[in-house]
């Protein structure tokens, strides 16, 4: 799996590409945790853009849950967007789409994030 980071004003976009399985989870977690740590003071946001994420297992879901938990007390808004249908199915069945903010695409997700300072 490849992970890219992009910054749009106060928002950090984490962009995973490929498969988020057991083998990829630790490295993905590192990227997401760094993004949250660097997001700094509120209002800031970290969005995982899943447009190129083809696969997620419970090992990957765990990273999303940990990230959402870390972001909350830090005052960082955490959201995901652009889930492919098979990834969306896993988010829905696990109940994660109820506890993690899910947006249709990057534009919608950005519209919900903090305005430029």
């Amino acid at each position, binding site marked *: 799996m490849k992970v890219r980071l992009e910054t749009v004003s106060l928002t950090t976009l984490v962009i995973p590409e490929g498969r988020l399985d057991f083998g990829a989870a630790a490295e993905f977690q590192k990227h997401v945790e760094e993004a949250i740590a660097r997001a700094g003071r509120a209002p800031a946001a970290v969005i995982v853009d899943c447009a190129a994420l083809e*696969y997620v*297992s419970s090992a990957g879901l*765990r990273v999303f849950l940990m990230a959402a938990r870390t972001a909350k007390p830090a005052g960082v808004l955490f959201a995901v967007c652009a889930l492919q249908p098979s990834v969306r199915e896993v988010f829905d069945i696990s109940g994660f789409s109820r506890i993690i903010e899910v947006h249709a695409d990057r534009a919608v997700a950005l519209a919900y994030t903090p305005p430029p300072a």
Partner: protein
Amino acid sequence: MTERRTSVPNDAAQLAVLTEFLQEFWSAGSLPSAHAMTFELALEEVFMNVVMHGSPPGLAVQVDLSLVLADGGVTMTVEDTGPAFDPLTLATPDVEASIDDRPTGGLGVFLVREMMDTVSYQRIAGRNQLQMTKRIDS
């Protein structure tokens, strides 16, 4: 009916080998890609459970994977030589729980049960056997 079998040691690095085996089965049978992820996910969850929890230190455990395409469905069977353990006895996670109350484990087997049509466990001749079936609409 088409059947393919393979066998690997209980090593996390073998997940990629098993996944590739499954993907080859899928493309050889021209099966719909919409269902591929269900089987890949079930394979990962079941295999990693054996690797992480079903293997006492120092004991070599062998994991056998069988894939059968018949009657418009795929049956995937995972067998291991580890100590008897029925993953279907694991508690169902509370998918309604709030973000802070959600346990981080126990999701894998739950996903498999929800996504497959049938899942059954048997202990046969000193082996754990987990069999999963799903209809494939092509």
